[in-house]
């Protein structure tokens, strides 16, 4: 009996080994597909590329740790890595100020706002200087937070989709389906933003920084801009500035990039100025994604229109 069970055990072992041998070539053939390496320069592009490309691409966002990736300056080693990339997605509109100082292959780079030059807005500030033989010249910037106009954001996502399809044509259908879904969501949000009804006769908007040009232009949310940081202290100068700006007979809202200090908020409240936060999505938001932040911004703005 013992002998029979031993033989049986040996036979089972042999059969299972043979099965494993049969499986192994199949496993070998299931080698992971090579993902194209895609670099992005800011969070909105990261979000679009991630939503459209998903697992099919190896997505890299080297400035992800930066609070404001527009001020990011890549080191030589990072540029060397980017030179090996299959695709580099850029925001354009002077967002990537480092681009003039680096050596990257033009063929690998895709500017997501190329062809949208007529929709670009000026920064609103210019500085003229002269030196040496060159004579007088002006440094005037283009506003670069383009995605706050969701119509532009959709156009940028479309550019990302086209670029990914060119990089990995075999995944075109998958990318297109992902893009369509993203486009529908963004279009719905854009529609909601367009439905905002803020009467400029009754409501005055002040922006803490001149970074909301596209939001103001796309959704009729015109207002003057300050150069205030959410971490700034409430003081006499700030009070004087608000006194100078605030118009009588209008409800005033100050739109911040991030939650201001309690003292600042209270000081403004005393002057009848309500603080609200509209996150311009400079960097990667914590715990939320692009659409969630845009929706949260919408909710803040809806409070004004109520």
């Amino acid at each position, binding site marked *: 009996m013992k002998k029979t069970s031993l033989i049986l055990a040996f036979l089972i072992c042999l059969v299972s080994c043979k099965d494993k041998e049969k499986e192994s070539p199949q496993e070998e053939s299931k080698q992971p597909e090579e993902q194209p390496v895609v670099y992005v320069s800011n969070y909105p592009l990261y979000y679009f590329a991630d939503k459209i490309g998903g697992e099919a691409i190896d997505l890299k966002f080297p400035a992800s740790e930066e609070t404001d990736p527009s001020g990011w300056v890549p080191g030589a*080693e990072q540029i060397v890595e980017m030179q090996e990339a299959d695709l580099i997605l850029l925001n354009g509109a002077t967002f990537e100020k480092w681009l*003039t*100082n680096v*050596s990257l292959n033009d063929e690998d780079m895709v500017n997501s706002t190329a062809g949208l030059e007529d929709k670009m807005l000026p920064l609103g500030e210019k500085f*003229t*200087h002269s*030196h040496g033989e060159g004579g007088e010249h002006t440094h005037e910037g283009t506003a670069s937070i383009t995605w706050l106009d969701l119509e532009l954001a959709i156009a940028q996502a479309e550019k990302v989709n086209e670029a990914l399809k060119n990089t990995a044509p075999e995944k075109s259908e998958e990318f297109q389906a992902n893009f369509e879904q993203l486009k529908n969501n963004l279009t719905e949000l854009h529609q909601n933003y367009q439905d905002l009804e803020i009467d400029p006769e009754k409501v005055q908007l002040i922006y803490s920084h001149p970074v909301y040009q596209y939001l103001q232009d796309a959704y009729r949310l015109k207002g003057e801009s300050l150069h205030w940081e959410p971490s700034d202290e409430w003081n006499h100068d700030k009070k004087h500035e608000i006194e100078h700006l605030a118009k009588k007979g209008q409800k005033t809202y100050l739109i911040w990039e991030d939650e201001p200090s309690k003292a600042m908020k209270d000081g403004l409240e005393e002057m009848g100025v309500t603080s609200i936060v509209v996150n311009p999505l400079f960097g990667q938001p914590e715990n939320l994604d692009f659409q969630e932040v845009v929706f949260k911004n919408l909710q803040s703005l809806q409070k004004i229109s109520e």
Partner: protein
Amino acid sequence: MNNSFYIAWRYLQFHWGKTLLLILSIALVVFIPLGLNYLVNKGSEDLMDRAEKTPLIVGAKGSETELSLSALYFNKPKNDAVEFREVESIKEQDLGIPIPLNIEYQVKEQPIVGTTSAYFEFRNLELKEGRKMAILGECVLGVNTAKKLNAEVGGSVISSPSGAFDVAGSFPLKMTVVGILEETGTPDDEAVFTDIKTTWVISGKAHGHQDLQQVVNDTLLLNKNENRAVASPAVLSYTEITPENINSFHFHDDPGDYPVNAIIVVPNDRKSALMLRGRYENNQNSVQMLVPEEVISELVDTMISIRDLLILAGVIIGIACLAILAFVFALSIKLRKAEITTMKHIGASRNFVSSVLGIEIGIVLILAIILSGILTLTMGNYGIPLIEKLIS
């Protein structure tokens, strides 16, 4: 036969001076047409090889040969530069990859080639050590340039003024060496490669200086308000690009206006090449597109015509020289009449005497042919770089 050879050899050895003179004279007569033919053929092959590997070149209208030699051999450009927007225009057409070349400046005698990393891929250039340039102010050296400038990775090289009377025109920029290329046996070994934007810094089109909005020293500013600042000549541009000052570098005006001496265009396919050529042919502006293979082929044809004339002259001179040599041999036999008579008196047959004289002539001719062969091979190895140097 052995005896005849021995006597002939001993005779030549005894009269070594006369023998050497004869061998040298005959070797040179054979070498001139042979060497010239070899040299021109090898030179033509090398010229054509680089031209054939370069599909299309765009540049300012003017001498096609100058434009081709600038783009292929980094000769100092004699034609005008075209605007960088020409590169952007080719890119927009999506018919090929444009590779800009700015060859205006030098480090000592070595040409600075301002281009993009696409040039390295196009020419299949491999790095012997280091890496490709990544940021403004970095450069990669050809292997011969590294030797000539005694530069290594981590070191630096400084651009020279573009001319003796241009001491203030271009920018003496200190560039960091980040890589050295493998030897290719082409003009790439002699170049200093950098990003095209770095050559614009050298030209002064782009520069970096102190932030004039932050300057507090009154001697640096002639005038300043919120929107405008006028710097005094005391504000100097940086002569080296470092991580600390790189962000102060900025470009004036539209970079589309900036100069490019030549553009290599790698078309997507034959049809794209034809479409591009057609567009430039109908183009009435000051830009031309050429096929370097055709231009260099014309240059080679001219070289071959000159070669043929020189060979013809060499052959005529050779025939005259051989006639003189025959005359010299005949005279020599006449002068050696007493020696030949002695040989006959001691028992040498007529055939033996003839064979001794024949072997003497044969040895001289064979040694002359061997020498001319050696001269031709030497010319093949060292003459081509010499010709390339003469062309550049």
